[in-house]
């Protein structure tokens, strides 16, 4: 056979501007999933200070909480978790074969809801930080 042209990786990642709702949902779900599992590991690591005793535990937690950046990261974490949950529920419905026609709409709804919840939670998360 004569040689043919393989357009390679450009094909896989270069076309993101042309992604449809379902593809974005997939990308975001992956991303949020990875963040969450990453967080789970750090979370346990931080909580491990409990073994060292109360002062260590309290100190670490409160020390972290005192950092503004951590507060912002918490908002981010919430957004990530909320999106993952909402889209996860969307995916569960898809798995059950329910509402497939509205798959794009439910994705947009998840996005909007995530945004709304994240914004609404800012006062709580940032409360007492300043």
């Amino acid at each position, binding site marked *: 056979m004569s040689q043919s042209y393989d357009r390679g990786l450009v094909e896989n990642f270069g076309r993101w501007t042309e992604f449809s709702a379902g593809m974005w949902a997939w990308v975001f779900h992956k991303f949020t999933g990875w963040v969450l599992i990453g967080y789970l590991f750090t979370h346990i690591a931080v909580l491990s200070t409990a073994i060292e*005793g109360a002062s260590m535990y309290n100190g670490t937690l409160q020390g972290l909480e005192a950092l503004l950046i951590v507060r912002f990261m918490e908002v981010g974490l919430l957004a990530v978790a909320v999106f993952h949950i909402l889209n996860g529920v969307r995916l569960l419905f898809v798995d059950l074969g329910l509402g497939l026609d509205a798959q794009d709409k439910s994705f947009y709804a998840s996005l909007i809801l995530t945004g709304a919840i994240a914004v609404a939670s800012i006062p709580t998360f940032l409360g007492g930080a300043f």
Partner: protein
Amino acid sequence: MAEHYTSFSRDDTRWLLQRVTAVFLVGVLAFHFMLLHFVHHAYEITLAGTTARMSQPGYFITMVSFLIAGTFHGVNGVYNALVNQGIEGTPRTIVKYGLIIVSLLLIAQGIRVAWAMTGGQLI
């Protein structure tokens, strides 16, 4: 004609467990977030409070299941993602056992911490 795929590793169990843990996690994660960020603000957390909660068997069991479910769900998800990216052969075997070991360590450490958090008060 195409050769048939011979690897008969059926993935339906892991697929199903991923969904089952997801359903479980929706509930517990929401509960967890509410409790530790909205009811008790994170910056107010102290070991004393934690110990109080952990000492209740129900809460302890919930948290440990949360940990196990979350770890399975997350690590299995990561593994699936890598397989989808086309990881094959030896690297795949390494990743697989690597992830299993890491998960077990995480769970073990988690339980150890949770146990410590009870301060031996678990009734």
